[in-house]
């Protein structure tokens, strides 16, 4: 989960950039090019405690958004920060819950240096799975059926969902209005004390999954979500492109509404 520790540094950066427009942009471009990873900052940057009025307003706003989603008819995801679960819902009822192990949110790109954070507790629309699932369809022609001699052949047992669609080492759900939800499985600690033998294949798998999630596509907000290994795979196989996401609940340090 994010902490407030990075906040003073972010404010400092904003202060330094109180320069003329072109100079400021030049500095931003230089900073962008030398930083090893994506620019990020703790999120949300609001004060840690919300008043009861603010909490109730936020909770009511989230409820109104959920009523809209529930009335629309299709499935939707709710990232419940207070309940520490990703919940797939439809018509207001729970279809499936995915308790999460860890969560971290970051703002990315120039939003770190300029402007206010976009509201996280909103409806993120048109989610798209990356990498997408491949659906292979077997096409059977009727004149090839029933006429062969099947004696001596071994019965074909179709694969399980895990065999048919294995979950990548990590995957991303990218929303049209600027959120990337990066889901990683929590595999626990490696038994090998050095971790080399245990991590070597997973490092390659992680690199491959990272490349397939198209990391060059940057979004304003990124949420890293760690799910138990089996749950991450289940979410990967259950997610349908287009499913919206509602983030609701309180971040640590904020009070829940009564």
């Amino acid at each position, binding site marked *: 989960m994010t902490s407030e520790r990075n906040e003073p540094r972010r404010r400092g950066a904003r202060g330094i950039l109180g320069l003329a427009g072109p100079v400021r942009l030049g500095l931003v471009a230089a900073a962008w090019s030398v930083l090893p990873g994506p620019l990020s900052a703790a999120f949300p940057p609001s004060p840690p405690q919300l*008043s*009861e*009025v603010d909490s*109730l*307003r936020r*909770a*009511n706003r989230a*409820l*109104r958004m*959920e*009523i809209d989603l*529930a*009335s629309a*008819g299709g*499935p939707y995801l709710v990232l419940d920060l207070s309940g520490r679960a990703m919940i*797939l819902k*439809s*018509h*207001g*009822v*729970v*279809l*499936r819950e995915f308790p999460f192990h860890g969560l971290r949110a970051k703002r990315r790109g120039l939003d770190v240096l300029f402007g206010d954070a976009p509201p996280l507790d909103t409806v993120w629309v048109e989610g798209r799975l990356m990498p997408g*699932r491949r*659906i*292979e*369809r*077997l*096409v*059977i*022609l*009727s*004149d090839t*059926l*029933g*006429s062969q001699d099947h004696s001596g052949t071994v019965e074909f*047992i*179709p*694969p*399980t*969902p895990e065999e*048919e*669609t294995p979950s990548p080492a990590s995957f991303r759900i990218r929303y049209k209005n600027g959120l990337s939800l990066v889901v990683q499985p929590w595999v626990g600690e490696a038994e090998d004390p050095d971790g080399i033998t245990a991590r070597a294949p997973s490092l390659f798998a992680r690199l491959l999954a990272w490349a397939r999630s198209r990391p060059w596509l940057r979004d304003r907000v990124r949420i890293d979500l760690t799910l138990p290994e089996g749950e991450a795979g*289940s979410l990967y*196989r*259950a*997610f*349908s492109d287009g499913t919206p996401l509602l983030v609701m609940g309180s971040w640590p340090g904020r009070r829940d*509404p*009564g």
Partner: protein
Amino acid sequence: MEGESVTGEEVATLREERQELLARLEAIRPKGAYVVVDRGNNRIYLRRGNSVVVDALASTGSRAVLQETTGPKRTWVFETPAGRFSILSKRPDPVWTKPDWAFLEAGEPIPDRVSERREYGSLGEYALDLGDGYMIHGTLYERLLGRSVTHGCVRVGRDALRTIARHTRVGSQVFIY
């Protein structure tokens, strides 16, 4: 003190609004037990409120395509449809009226008489009709549960099917995703 009292009134108003919103959300929710089918993971759940009554393996559509090469040259896609359904009827000891594709698959001629299409016992103890020929039913092939092997129906093991049949009624909601 005045500020505190204004805040107190606002809190009361917001709490009242919250109760109204919760009531609106409750009104959207289907009442009673409902069935959830997860096609990607081949699982079926029976839920009631926040509790899970059944969590079991199921089999859903294979997504295969059957193309008829002679005659009307029809095409069937063996996929379980996603969406919200209602149980239209609940039949104990159902009899399967085999559709044309079942005969094509077996390499047999398609019969004219309905009586020649009837098959007993293959749907298990119950069939819950969802419409358009789709059903939740039992199976003779429990070893294939958890795999995508069906022609679009949802196959369930005997024990899970008994519980689902006991807790649902005509009109109960089925969510397939």
